[in-house]
């Protein structure tokens, strides 16, 4: 795995290197091509030109030849002037090789002192005579160039053409500069050699003379050509290599991109300003050679640098979408904020105020100290801007505060609000986050609870449903047994017991079903305005028999004014029925049961109080299903009475609570009171035509209702008697 990734990295890097090198080389080549194009002709062509010249030209027309000739003449004259050296050469004569006779020289002074390379110094020798006759007869055979000097005039002939003649002022080959010292009779030369007189000098030169200089030029040109050739080869090889590398790069662009990404990652860490500064510096650096008009060679490197810098920055921009956002200001800010978030809210506020105050203080000091009025104005403006910024910051916090408190109150109201999102730099962001996590925690808990509750209800529903079928059989066969006449008496007793228990079981199953539905809000409700006193009285009247059977005194305390509430009458009947049954069942014999209805702050409170037969200390939560005050569970009932009362009351929009004080057990059912409804729902007239009711016949429905109100509660019913 490791080696693999290392190999990957290497391959990536290789691809990237190939790209960089190939592009650099191509860039250089392009620059060279440009230079060649603008400077006109290649370096090779120039070298060729000079070589051609060296090879093609007549050597006797070259500067070197002229130089050599003049040097030989001066040397000969110098040697002639030196008495002691008379007759032989003391100087070095360039290109005058005695062995070869490419140059013949004869010079004499006063017909006595002679200087020659012809093999004899005697002027009478055949060779020398022939030389001396050259002026008249032209150059001897094998020589095409001759120079004659007689101490006054100098004549040079080449191929029979006079190219230099001091008398005739001919200088077609440009010898003047070389022989100017000879021409100037009052000059330095003649001052030094003034004793030379009656001079005569003849020099002839064979054609195609090759001088040492020629070979030097040749070798220079050759080496230049060679180096150029090598450069070409090298350049071509580099170009081919570059192209190969570029192709390789093209095939592995993904790998190069990988490196680009990594580079971008690194460059992403650098602040934007630093990048800008770097770019500016590189640009300035590159502009220098151009401003100073230097050659391409000098501008190449800066150009490459600029090119790569730009490419690097482009890469940075490409992979770092918000490249300008990573700057020193933001970094400082985020550092400040993270530092701040660790502190408590109050500390945060204090330190932000301290920062503000410090900034204002510094600005005030500058304002006091600064001499120029413009500077003072700028300082004042800066102070105002900071003040505005601080106010804005503070207003933002206040807005967030408002949102936070709104959210809290909405959460309390149970609204399903979306989580709060504050700006990250908001001072209240941590608080909002905490609140959000609390909210999601609560909603999770509630969801879990609801799910668990629903599963419980489903289980109970299924179980109660499955119990019903066998229970049907049990009840039916018990009924059949009961009809048997000839059974012994004790068997009949057993059957009665079975019948009672089967009935209780049936009730329990129904109760379980109802409670489980009510506690999950799964019951259908038909709320309508009703009179609470009436409901209580009807319930009591309905239960008259069991109330009478219990040895208890019932005390009713109901207000005279009808108390209207909006609720489902059928369900509330079950609530009061269960509460009263509970009171009848668990009250101490002979004690009193109080049923009181009071209205407090728009809430109707119905209290049912009784003195318990059992000690109520350590009373379990009797409103829980199957929880009963007497743990022996010996008494009748499903153990669901209070649970039904509680869940029905709450489903109907009321509150249910139970409290105990010593042996006093009290249940409170509370509902919001509603205003008396308009009696429009009453039907227009009665259908009864019987004379008995004729007097009421004319009464309007509204009045009827009104009358009902008046007569309904003539006075608060107070009864000490068992009803």
């Amino acid at each position, binding site marked *: 795995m490791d080696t693999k990734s290392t190999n990957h990295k290497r391959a990536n890097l290789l691809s990237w290197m190939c790209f960089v090198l190939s592009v650099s080389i191509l860039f250089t080549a392009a620059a060279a091509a440009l230079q060649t194009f603008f400077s006109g002709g290649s370096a090779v062509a120039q070298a060729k030109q000079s070589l051609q010249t060296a090879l093609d030209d007549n050597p006797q027309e070259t500067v070197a030849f002229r130089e050599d000739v003049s040097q030989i003449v001066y040397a000969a004259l110098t040697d002639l002037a030196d008495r002691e050296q008379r007759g032989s050469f003391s100087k070095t004569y360039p290109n005058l090789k005695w062995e070869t006779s490419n140059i013949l020289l004869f010079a004499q002074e006063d017909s006595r002192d002679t200087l020659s390379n012809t093999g004899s110094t005697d002027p009478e020798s055949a060779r020398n005579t022939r030389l001396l006759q050259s002026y008249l007869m032209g150059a001897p055979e094998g020589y095409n160039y001759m120079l004659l000097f007689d101490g006054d005039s100098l004549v040079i002939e080449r191929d029979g053409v006079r190219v230099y003649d001091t008398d005739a002022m001919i200088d077609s080959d440009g010898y003047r500069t070389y022989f100017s010292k000879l021409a100037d009779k009052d000059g330095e030369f003649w001052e030094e050699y003034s004793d030379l007189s009656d001079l005569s000098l003849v020099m002839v030169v064979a054609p195609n003379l090759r001088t040492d200089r020629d070979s030097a030029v040749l070798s220079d040109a050759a080496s230049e050509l060679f180096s150029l050739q090598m450069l070409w080869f090298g350049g071509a090889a580099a170009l081919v290599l570059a192209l190969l590398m570029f192709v390789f790069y093209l095939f592995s662009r993904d790998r190069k991109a990988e490196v680009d990404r990594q580079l971008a990652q690194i460059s992403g860490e650098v602040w934007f300003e630093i990048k800008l500064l770097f770019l500016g510096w590189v640009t300035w650096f590159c502009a220098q050679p151009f401003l100073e008009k230097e050659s391409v060679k000098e501008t190449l490197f800066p150009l490459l640098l600029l090119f790569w810098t730009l490419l690097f920055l482009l890469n940075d921009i490409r992979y770092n979408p918000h490249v300008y956002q990573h700057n020193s200001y933001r970094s400082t800010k985020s550092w400040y904020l993270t530092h701040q978030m660790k502190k408590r809210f109050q500390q945060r506020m204090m330190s932000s105020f301290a920062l503000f105050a410090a900034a204002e203080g510094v600005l005030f000091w500058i304002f006091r100290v600064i001499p120029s009025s413009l500077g003072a104005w700028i300082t004042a403006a800066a102070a105002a801007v900071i003040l505005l910024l601080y106010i804005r910051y503070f207003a933002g916090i206040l807005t967030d505060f408002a949102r936070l408190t709104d959210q809290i109150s909405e959460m309390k109201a149970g609204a399903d609000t979306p989580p709060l999102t504050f700006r990250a730099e908001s001072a209240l962001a941590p608080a909002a986050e905490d609140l959000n996590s609390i909210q999601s925690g609560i909603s999770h808990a509630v969801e879990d609870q609801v799910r668990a509750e629903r599963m419980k209800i489903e289980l109970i529903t299924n179980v109660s*449903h499955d119990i*019903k*079928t066998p*229970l*049907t*059989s*049990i*009840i*039916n*066969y018990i*009924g*059949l047994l009961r*009809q048997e006449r000839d059974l012994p008496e004790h068997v009949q007793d057993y059957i009665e017991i079975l019948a009672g228990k*089967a009935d209780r079981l*049936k009730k329990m*199953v*129904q109760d379980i*079903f109802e409670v489980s539905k009510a506690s999950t809000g799964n019951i*259908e409700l038909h709320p*309508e305005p*009703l*009179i*609470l006193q*009436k*409901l209580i*009285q*009807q*319930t*009591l*009247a*309905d239960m*008259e028999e069991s109330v009478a059977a219990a040895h208890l005194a019932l005390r009713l305390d109901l207000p005279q004014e009808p108390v209207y509430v909006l*609720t489902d*009458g*059928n369900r*509330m*009947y079950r609530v009061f029925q269960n509460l009263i049954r509970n009171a009848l069942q668990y009250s101490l014999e002979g004690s009193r049961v109080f049923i009181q209805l009071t209205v407090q702050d728009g809430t109707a409170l119905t209290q049912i109080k009784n003195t318990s037969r059992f000690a109520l200390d350590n009373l379990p939560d009797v409103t829980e299903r199957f929880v009963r005050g007497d743990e022996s569970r010996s008494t009748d009932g499903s153990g669901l009475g209070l649970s039904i009362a509680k869940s029905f009351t709450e489903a109907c929009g009321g509150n249910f609570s139970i409290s105990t004080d010593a042996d006093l057990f009290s249940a409170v059912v509370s509902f919001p009171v509603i205003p008396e409804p308009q009696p429009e729902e*009453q*039907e227009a007239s*009665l*259908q*009864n*035509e*019987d004379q*008995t*009711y004729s007097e*009421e016949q004319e009464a309007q429905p509204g009045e*009827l209702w009104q*009358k*009902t109100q008046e*007569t*309904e509660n*003539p006075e608060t019913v107070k009864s000490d008697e068992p*009803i």
Partner: protein
Amino acid sequence: MEKQCILVVDDDKEIVRAISIYLEKEGYDVLCAYDGVQAVDFAMSRNIHLILIDVMMPRQNGLAAILKIRETRNLPIIVLSAKSEDSDKILGLSMGADDYITKPFNPQELVARVKSQLRRYTTLGDINSTAQNLITIGRLTFDTDNHTLTADGEPVRLTATETKIVELLMKNAGRIFPAEEIYRRVWNEPAFSAENTVMVHIRRIREKIEINPKEPEYLKVVWGIGYKIDKP
């Protein structure tokens, strides 16, 4: 008179057996079936006067069977079901059932309901044919001329006060009467302790006219408001 034949359908054989024993004691012929398909077969092929049918059964459920039977036969059908929700009852009745009894049921109540359905099925036509001032609500018919009440065609013996209460409520079916108003109209004197007095009478009337007085079908208490008999 030919014995009336009742089809009892339930997948629980013991329940079918118990029901048939009760019904045979009352003098009916009983046919037993244990699933919906069998029930439809019997209903089509035999001369049956009433069907008692369970809802949740194998092969074909009770409601589907009722739909099938109702296509051709017009006879009273009573649903027996362990489902006790209002929505289940409404569904059953809207499928064409005439009555809905929830399990576990009281055998006596079952028998009473069977009798009621049969009586209405066989004799109701005669009552309706006589031109009298009659108010009919379900099983109950009140003769306003003679101030008599019949349930399933059988006369109900009511006291004078009870008759007045029934007449008031039946003539104004659907209207809710507070106890005080009933008291004033029936006793013709100002109400005093009206709630108890009226309630006692209401309970007595229920005993006489309702099949199951604890779950009244007709004479209902509107808790917190008053009493009423629903409109037909």
